[in-house]
């Protein structure tokens, strides 16, 4: 079974990967956006967004969705960072998963944009990736995991 990092631990992936060629919905399988839009019942659903597919269509159903996968076909395409943050800012509380070809060196950025699960195409380096999640312990900006920017958290200046 493929493995992923979820909430800081390595776990098995119980979801079946999205398949654009398989028209029928089945339990436990991640939908493409097109498939998901046609789902009559979105309760407990899982949907995968590709670059260029903004999360706008999901915003009315965020409470029903169990898993949103943001696919990174290539790690240099950073659109998914904004998609993830958008979803969390609109109140999405389910699993937000990055999947595909991204780097362990991007994990702190992804986590700060609201991602809590990471499934690498190549899962041979997951232990190393766990270490990269601790690259930074302090940040300037507001983010999903730290809603206050540093300037609102700094002790009253003694400068």
């Amino acid at each position, binding site marked *: 079974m493929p493995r992923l990092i979820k909430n800081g631990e390595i776990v098995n992936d119980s979801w079946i990967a999205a398949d654009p060629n398989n028209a029928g919905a089945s339990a436990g399988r991640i939908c493409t956006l097109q498939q998901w839009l046609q789902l009559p019942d979105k309760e407990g659903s899982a949907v995968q967004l590709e*670059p260029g597919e*903004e999360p706008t269509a999901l915003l009315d159903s965020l409470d029903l969705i169990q898993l949103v996968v943001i696919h990174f076909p290539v*790690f*240099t*395409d*950073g*659109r998914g*960072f*904004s*998609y993830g*943050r958008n979803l969390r*800012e609109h109140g999405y509380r389910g699993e937000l998963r990055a999947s595909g070809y991204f*780097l362990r*060196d*991007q994990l*702190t*950025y*992804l986590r*700060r*944009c609201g991602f809590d699960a990471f499934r690498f195409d190549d899962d041979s*380096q997951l232990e190393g990736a766990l270490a990269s999640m601790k*690259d*930074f*312990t*302090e*940040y*300037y*900006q*507001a*983010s999903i995991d730290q*809603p*206050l*920017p*540093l*300037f*609102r958290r*700094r002790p*009253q*200046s003694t*400068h």
Partner: protein
Amino acid sequence: MYIYDQYDQKIVDERVAQFRDQTARFLSGQISDAEFLPLRLQNGLYLQRQAPMLRIAVPYGLMNSAQLRKLASITRNYDKGYAHISTRQNIQLNWPALAEVPDILAELATVQMHAIQTSGNCVRNTTTDQFAGVACDELEDPRPYCEIIRQWSTLHPEFAFLPRKFKIAVCGSMEDRAAIHHHDIGIELVANDAGEIGLKILVGGGLGRTPAIGAVVCPWLDKKHMLTYLEAILRVYNKHGRRDNKYKARIKILVKAMGVEAFTAAVEQEWSALKDGPTTLTNEEFLRASSFFESPAYEQIDTQIAASELQTQCEKDPIFANWVKRNTQRHRVPGYRIVSISLKATGYAPGDITAEQLELVAELSDCYSFGEVRSTHEQNLVLGDVQISQLYTLWRQLQGAGLATANIGYLTDIICCPGGDYCSLANAKSLPVAEAIQVRFENLDYVYDLGPLELNISGCMNACGHHHIGHIGILGVDKKGQEYYQICLGGSQSKDASIGNILGPSFKQEDMPDVIDTILSTYVELREEEEHFLDTYRRVGIDPFKERVYASAD
């Protein structure tokens, strides 16, 4: 200047540790070239023709003497004893060894410096007026705004993998010395009808392959909204900027494709979700940021005595008098001058400075200018706060180190990228062209007679030498494997921003001094009285120049 607290230091230290680990993984083959590329670029590291190049961030061009001394020691211990000031106020090392770069970054961190986001498809070093805080025409000091932007943009989690690089410049004065019309975002401090200072936001300016002048997306923004508004712009760009073609990936292309109105509407839409959120700036934060840029302890100076002493020194020594006239500027505090240190001596690459010179400038800044030094996008240095009575001693010491070339703002103060001698992107060499022009126009009286003249040279379309906005711009091009040079005329980086027009077919390197000579003598013939080059060009157009240059080439 801004001083790190434990938070700033921790972030920079953690970045050094992260890059040390990344470099080790790359050197042991765990990271591929393609994967290491954005990681190293976002730490300022290029792999170039001869050796790696490390670009060190100089936030809005401000350094202290301890930092200059550290840079000098780094150039000695890890490089070849010199550094280069870039056209974005940063400092570049041309010969570091890849394996030693983490050590260099660790040394920089001890003096509160880093190389974060000096390259790569992310928000780069924010630049501003080199005379910030001391200029006479300033509405408000732009540096607190720059520092706030620096912190917000440093390791921003959402915007580290943008379609392309992203450059922000801030201007707080009447004259624009930061070229804000030619940045992805230009911010101008402006007063509204009620006299409150806010921000005018321009988007989509740039140089490179498709030069463009920024469009106003917000004529006046309450400064507390600065970061949320920037975040909205970046988010629209991150989502919608083109990623299929790197030459069409800058935000200027997106603004053009959408149209300014639709682009502005998209920004306002994103902004509505961010506005008044936690990233909204507080008065306390502005006060904190401003507290680092308060006026130093200026002395009360009897300006009449100071002026008459200066007068006497100038009469005794005409070379000094000339340097004062060309390389110093009025300061907002009576009795002080702003001193520009020219790094454009003939025979040296524009913007290069040796370790010894760095140390001397550090020493001079401690003695005469409160220990602070500024780098300029024209690739010179500035001592911002020099007492008039100390100019002579300062000048003697600069002169002894080859740092008193009196050409600031004139023809031979050439802006020039490292070009084909160093840069692997370049189509042609730029340094020999700069030198040939400096050698040809060694007669300073003629150069002064030409008046203010900006000559900018880039070795390729990426336009690091800002050729589009030089009054005279030179671009190196590749013609069937041969290096040729195209000329454009009439560019301007000021508030009356314009992009130069191409004169015509390109020239061989050895012909360049003659061609420039012809352009200049055409100007001298056509100008009316004291008319500046740019004004003459705008009055007569490109045709007279074209006729003369190509007639003489036939």
